[in-house]
Structures are given as structure tokens and as C-alpha cells.
């Protein structure tokens, strides 16, 4: 039986089946919500406010849903515990995997919850230039703004990307067995817009 089925079946049994404890120990709990933009209004200094807004965005950026596919190496990670993807898959020439092991070999256009396989119309790995893994929030911030490393996007383009790209939006609807990114895409988009409007300042470190 698919593990998704297994869990729901187990719930039906009134008992919890295998899969919860040891190996599947999850990453430290992350904030499930995002602070609304308005709550940053108390920060008088615009630059400080911008930095604070970005730090809040960091809860999403550094969440497993986003970080897993912005790896430092050619290999993505998976699960909330951020283990290396099994089987071994790589970015490949165009971010869509290796010959005979393209992302689409397993990932369809939509999540397939019975088998807990996530999916999206353009399931792919972020380009190496957009690697976030192992970087500080400050470094990620500078990288995000660098048009050589962000897909040639200006700030408006970035906001549009995170609010309309289906693969980014997938982070909030990741399917069975995965924790969604904190907050909502609308909240995240609003934070980013506010960050852009406040000068898109980056944390110092």
C-alpha cells in the first residue's frame, strides 16, 4: 500500500502505523505562520524595516520546501528532514535531470498523494547560480538581487515570480507528508513587495 494510504489507513485503525519515529525524525519545527507586513510598521528606520522584512521572508526561503531544490551541489534534498534525494538525481543540463532519469520520470504535473509524490508542471531544480544551501540569509539576499544570479529579474520581476510561478506556489501546497512553507503565498508576496518598496536591504550577516 502506498505510504500515504498507509497513514490514512492507520488513522482509520485508530492506531499509528510505522513511519513516524526514528528515521523519519523531522527537521526542527519551523514557524508555520508569517508576520503580516503591517506588524513591521513599528520599525522606524526604513533600512532596518527592510532587513526585518527579509528576515521574515527567510522563514520561507530557508524552509525545506524551498531549500531542498536550491542545493549547493547538483543533488536535491527531500523530506522535511532534508535528506539527500533517493534515488540519486541530479540537476543535469537544464535543471530537469539526467538522461533516462528526468524529473518527469517520477514527478507528474500535480502532486500524487496516494504515493506521496509531489508534482508540478515544470518540476525542476533551481540553477546552480541560485543555490541557497549552506548560505547565510545575507548571502541569499544579495544573490536574489543579483540579476546575474536570479534569472535576470528586477525586484518587480522577483515579486511576480514568487507570486505567480506554480513551482514556487507549490511550496504552500506540497501534498501529503510534507510540511508547507510558512504562511501563505499572498503573505509572502506582500512581504517581498514591502521589502522591495523599502529598498530591498539585506541583512548584514
Amino acid at each position, binding site marked *: *500500500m*502506498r*505510504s500515504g494510504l498507509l497513514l490514512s489507513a492507520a488513522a482509520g485503525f485508530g492506531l499509528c502505523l510505522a513511519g513516524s519515529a526514528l528515521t523519519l525524525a523531522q527537521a526542527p519545527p519551523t514557524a508555520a505562520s508569517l508576520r503580516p507586513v503591517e506588524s513591521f510598521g513599528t520599525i522606524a528606520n526604513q533600512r532596518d524595516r527592510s532587513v526585518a522584512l527579509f528576515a521574515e521572508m527567510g522563514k520561507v526561503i530557508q524552509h525545506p520546501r524551498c531549500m531542498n531544490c536550491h542545493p549547493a551541489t547538483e543533488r536535491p534534498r527531500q523530506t522535511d528532514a532534508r535528506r539527500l534525494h*533517493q*534515488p*540519486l*538525481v*541530479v540537476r543535469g543540463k537544464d535543471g530537469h535531470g*539526467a*538522461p*533516462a*532519469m*528526468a524529473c*518527469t*520520470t*517520477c514527478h*507528474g*504535473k*500535480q502532486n*500524487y498523494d*496516494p*504515493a*506521496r*509524490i509531489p508534482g508540478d508542471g515544470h518540476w525542476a531544480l533551481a540553477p546552480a547560480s541560485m543555490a541557497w544551501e549552506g548560505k547565510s540569509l545575507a548571502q541569499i539576499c544579495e544573490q536574489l538581487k543579483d540579476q546575474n544570479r536570479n534569472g535576470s529579474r528586477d525586484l518587480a520581476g522577483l515579486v511576480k515570480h514568487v507570486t505567480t510561478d506554480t513551482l514556487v506556489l507549490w511550496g504552500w501546497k506540497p501534498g501529503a507528508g510534507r510540511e508547507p512553507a510558512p504562511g501563505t503565498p499572498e503573505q509572502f508576496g506582500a512581504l517581498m513587495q514591502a521589502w522591495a518598496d523599502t529598498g530591498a536591504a539585506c541583512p548584514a550577516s
Partner: protein
Amino acid sequence: MVSLKVNGTTHSVDVDDDTPLLWAIRDNIGLTGTKFGCGVAQCGACTVYVDGQPVRSCVTPVSAVGDSEITTIEAITGKEAEAVQAAWTARDVPQCGYCQSGQVMSAVALLKENKKPTDRDIDLAMNGNLCRCATYVRIRAAIHDAARALEI
């Protein structure tokens, strides 16, 4: 009713939309060369081609297939398929043989895209196909054999 185009024939199968292609192929259409091993895209035994590209049929709902052309191990053709299957037999690759349909499907897909795969290319293409008998030494050798045969 879902319409599936498998090995050149259109079949109407009476299954729910979320039914994995694997079970529609095996239980409803009756083609059993495609195997069930894990149900979660970890072992590759269920590999078929959808419009020529390898896909794990155990995690592909029939609703996602549309009018794509599905090809199973029973109907693979062409020089890569012939070379791979000849190499598999010549090397006596299979042991229990249960995973080998999937192995052959992945190997043929690799050679269609990459005429002269390196060991690393083979690792990347084939590591999604588990073999509990661990026939991996021969799988690798047979893919190299098939690539050489295709050069001639």
C-alpha cells in the same frame, strides 16, 4: 471510463481517475511485463514510456496520461531495444528477473539519448532501478556492450 493508448492500441478501462497507470496496464489491460515493486517510485520495476520518455507507472494516475502514447516492455522496438535485450541475454544479466523489465526500459531510454554512456551516465540513468539480486555489475557491462553494438 478512461481511454488509454497502450502499445498502439486504444483501451477503454473502467477504473477510477486516481488509479496508477501500473494497475490499469496489469489488471485491466492484462500486460504483466511491467512489474510492481514499491508503489512509490523508489524501485523502477514499473517503468513504461509515456510519449517515449521513461515514467514510473506506479505513481502516474491514469488521469494524467491523457492521449499520450504508452509503451510497455512487451512492445519496445528499435535498434536500442534490440541491442539492450541481446546484451542482457548474452551477459546472463537476470537472476530472479523480476526487476529486469524496468532495468531494460531504463537502459534503452538511456541509449536513445546517449549513444556512448560513461559509467557515471549509467549510474545517473539506472540508479532509480533497484535490483535486490544486485545484478548491477552485469547491467553496467551489458549497457556498454549494447552501446558498442550500436556503433557498428
